[in-house]
């Protein structure tokens, strides 16, 4: 970037030291914003300043990370009245996740939508947040977004003349959302999963606008997660409770998939339309799908190169 394009910000001595060094912490420190925010929000200043001054997740020492997770576990266990665990499962070496969705099977029943909400602790209503959106399309027009609706509500599905295309985060190989994030709150891990640190997110929603698939959802209000329905097995970058004002999206259920389990939507689908596995393993279901069926990626022309593949098994 030439100097001409640079915004006239005042840099402190540490800002911009490493290429990857996020400057949010430095900004907050120099501005003493922590203290101000603490005073305004009425929280204990120490805790808030400490929270705001922590390093980026990828730079935390293992000890510091464990300490942070422990605090969250304690806080949420008390809040939800059950033993909540917060893991930080790392990507598994030698694994790159791929997802397959059989459009010739999906009947549009939305079982996946609600299994996802339950597994991933989404806000139930006001705001209602759902990471999967099932689009009903016309057989006559094929995959065409101008002939699609998520609001279909007949007595029974599938309806004649229609097919269904569930859309969720496509875990792009070239994710536009991570590029635009001004604070590096979202990035792509080596197993292919695009993750968000909800505590690092400033809620600017640049990523939401950049995503061509409408996958990113914003918590416009305090999430509404009934304690009885809260799933206590969580991961820091996955399904742990989110605060108001941050963005969230599908993570391939990383709290499950990084422990070897199938995502919740795969297990619930009554027609077996959803396939999941390791793209680096030739025997995996997703590789077998690619080997035997014609697969396509959604909005191929945007060169986002999703790790989410649609196919027709028949």
């Amino acid at each position: 970037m030439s100097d001409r394009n640079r915004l006239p910000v005042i840099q402190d001595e540490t800002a911009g030291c490493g290429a990857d060094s996020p400057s949010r912490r430095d900004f907050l420190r120099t501005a003493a914003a922590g203290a101000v925010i603490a005073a305004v929000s009425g929280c204990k200043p120490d805790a808030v300043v400490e929270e705001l001054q922590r390093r980026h997740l990828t730079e935390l020492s293992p000890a510091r990370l464990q300490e942070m997770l422990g605090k969250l576990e304690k806080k949420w266990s008390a809040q939800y009245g059950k033993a909540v665990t917060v893991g930080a499962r790392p990507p598994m070496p030698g694994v790159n996740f791929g997802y397959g969705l059989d459009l010739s099977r999906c009947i549009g029943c939305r079982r996946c939508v609600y299994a996802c909400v339950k597994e991933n602790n989404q806000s139930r209503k006001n705001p209602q947040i759902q990471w999967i959106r099932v689009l009903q399309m016309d057989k006559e027009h094929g995959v065409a977004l101008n002939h699609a609706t998520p609001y279909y509500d007949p007595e029974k599905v599938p309806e004649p003349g229609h097919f269904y295309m569930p859309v969720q985060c496509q875990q792009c190989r070239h994710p536009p959302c991570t590029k635009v994030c001004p604070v590096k709150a979202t990035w792509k891990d080596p197993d292919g999963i695009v993750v968000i640190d909800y505590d690092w997110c400033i809620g600017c929603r640049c990523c939401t606008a950049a995503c061509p698939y409408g996958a990113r959802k914003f918590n416009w209000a305090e999430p509404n997660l009934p304690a009885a329905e809260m799933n206590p097995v969580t991961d820091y970058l996955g399904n742990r409770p989110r605060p108001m004002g941050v963005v969230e999206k599908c993570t391939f259920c990383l709290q499950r998939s990084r422990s070897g389990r199938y995502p919740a939507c795969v297990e619930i689908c009554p027609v077996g339309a959803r396939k999941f596995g390791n793209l680096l393993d030739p025997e995996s279901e997703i590789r077998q799908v690619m080997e035997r069926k014609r697969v396509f990626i959604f909005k191929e022309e945007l060169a986002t190169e999703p790790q989410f593949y649609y196919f027709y098994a028949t």
Partner: protein
Amino acid sequence: MNIPSWRAVLPFAAAALVAVPLAALGGPPPTPAKAPAKAPAPAAAVQDIQAEPPPFSEGIFPCSQCHDKAGDPTPRQLAFHDDLQAELHHGPPSRWCLDCHDNGKRDFLHLINGKQIPFTESYELCGQCHGDKYRDWKVGVHGKRTGMWDGKKTYFLCVNCHNPHNPRFKALKPEPPPIPPQEQGR
């Protein structure tokens, strides 16, 4: 950017811990640490795969409760299993019980070549006509699996999803649609 991968580091750490006391004792050299970048997870070994039990109608199985010997093999309208016969919509109308159920060994099915198979292996029978689906099912392209993507998993049999007497998948009531943004009051 990446979170430090403990899984990758642990084998080394463990090996180092083992190595020190063994070396002190002059024992055998420790097994070399596993390479951190482990090869792609192998497909589940056969013994890791279980199938859902086939669904049996209450009080009907085992068939040998009533059928103690071979019956009349002539296709005809039955007096007892008339309910099953009425809902039999699978292939041509000439389809008849003993096309699949075995007349000699009553708690078994049989293949076209006469081989008797238990109900837990009915996929072999289905695969005689639906070879393409059988091929896809064996590799996980057709059908459903639950459990671990890299390990122990449960396969659904053909008959766990398709009623063999009436295999077409039934329409379902959909879960409620999303609330449009303009209706999300705050």
